[in-house]
């Protein structure tokens, strides 16, 4: 259950557990969290709580509401956010995930009556009337025009470093034969394809525990250190030799 701790000048005044869907903060006594100070408006702000999430909304107060030093109109509260109203501070604590084990907490559950009251006037998703809703202005032709030896994936993927592993050293491949001989390709993406589309393509996967090469398309498998790769993923070691679509290349860890 989330809670707020009200303090002024470092002195804790009270603790308030957010049990209600709407918790009012203001100067007047009927507020759920009354703050008797002239810098505070009669009804200054409201906290809206939906299950494990809480939002703060400024109710058009005279002097405004700040969260973590920034003035806000509405804000989605995160653990340890500090709300400032005049000289008063309210720190937001949300320990929901620690109460149940993480696995239990994330289990999918059905919620019987959707919190419609809390999500005002949630309009039903406009029914998609079949075919015409499908946008057709997207590009269909994906085939690479000219066979290129080295084609990295389109854009950088989000870094997905995992805490269990030491950081993965940077690696690259150097092309040793063919038209692109001498070129070096840094393996910065999670997925990098090499080879000629339509003929023979492999992908090098960057994972938390190392780099792996896997056959993607083509009638025959690429060679790794002179042996056929087969259909399975193979871990790559420093100075491994890859031969794909008639081109030799070397995998290496960067110093």
């Amino acid at each position, binding site marked *: 259950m989330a809670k707020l701790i009200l303090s002024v000048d470092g002195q804790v005044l009270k603790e308030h557990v957010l049990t209600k869907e709407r918790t009012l903060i203001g100067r007047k006594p009927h507020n759920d969290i009354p703050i008797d100070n002239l810098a505070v408006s009669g009804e200054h702000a409201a906290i809206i709580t*939906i299950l494990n999430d809480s939002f703060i909304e400024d109710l058009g107060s005279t002097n405004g509401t700040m969260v973590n030093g920034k003035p806000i109109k509405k804000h989605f509260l995160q653990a340890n956010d500090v709300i400032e109203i005049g000289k008063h501070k309210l720190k937001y604590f949300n320990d929901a995930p620690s109460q149940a084990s993480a696995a239990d907490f994330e289990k*999918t559950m*059905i919620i019987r009556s959707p919190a*419609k009251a809390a999500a005002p006037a949630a*309009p039903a998703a406009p029914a998609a009337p079949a075919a015409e*809703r499908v946008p057709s202005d997207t590009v269909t032709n*994906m085939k690479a025009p000219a066979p290129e030896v080295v084609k990295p994936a389109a854009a950088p*993927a989000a870094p997905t470093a995992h805490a269990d592993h030491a950081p993965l050293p940077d690696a690259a491949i150097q092309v040793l034969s063919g038209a692109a001989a001498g070129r070096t390709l840094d393996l910065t993406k999670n997925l990098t394809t090499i080879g000629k589309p339509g003929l023979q393509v492999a992908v090098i996967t960057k*994972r938390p525990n190392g780099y792996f090469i896997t056959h993607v398309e083509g009638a025959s498998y690429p060679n790794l250190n002179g042996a056929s790769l087969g259909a399975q993923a193979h871990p790559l070691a420093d100075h491994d030799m890859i031969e794909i679509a008639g081109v030799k290349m070397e995998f290496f860890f960067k110093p």
Partner: protein
Amino acid sequence: MNLAQALQSASLTDPGRVRDHNEDCVELRPEIGLYVLADGMGGYNAGEVASGMATSLIADGLAETWNPREVDRLSRDEAMALAERLIGEQIARANTAIYTTSQNNPECAGMGTTLVVCLFYDNFVSVAHIGDSRLYRLRGEAMEQVTRDHSLLQEQLDSGLITPEEAKLSQNRNLVTKALGIDPAVEPELHVYECEPEDLYLLCSDGLNDMVEDEEIRLTLITLRSNPSLTVQQLVQAANDNGGRDNVSAMLVRVAEPFAVARGWLARFKALFR
């Protein structure tokens, strides 16, 4: 028209890195262009009972009632309407079966499941879904989420209460507003979409899209688009590399060639001799 040839498909389901059993369930019937994925919930171990019942009942039920050879005699609009009606009927039947089982077996009390059903026919796909299992489509280099989750988070997004950025931080991501087998009746969301050659359709459980960013899913689909079985392996592996906190399932359908049904008297005449 040989559907199994026009549509390349692959699927993979995995318990993930944290859970000791898998409550996801997938069922493929490539010969009739049918793909079903379910993510079970509730009970102690009853989630997989619900998802297993849902996928097998719906796949078997449609395999019995949806006969592409007979459907070929209908007009395209009639075929679309029939697909929608039969999918709806089979979902209702599975809902009753799961609900009755949970009422009569205390160990199954409260079980339910999410569901995505895709039925491909005549260059269209009929899609039904319940809950937060998803269908994505890659067309060209653009990926689109075809289904809209039946979840509290989605309702909050729709009402503007939170932004997509805030949604990523929400503690409420595990709450669905609709599920199969929870109540005596359920209303699935049903839509029909036109298919184009080289489209990729990805059915997945939330164990994938909660662990792997949409952009990374998109890049994986683009990079490995010629090899569906490698794509699903790579997606499941990415979910596990990122923590694998939930069961993860991915099912991929690639439109390798158009699968329009030939109509007109000559085609029908030929069909008699197939």
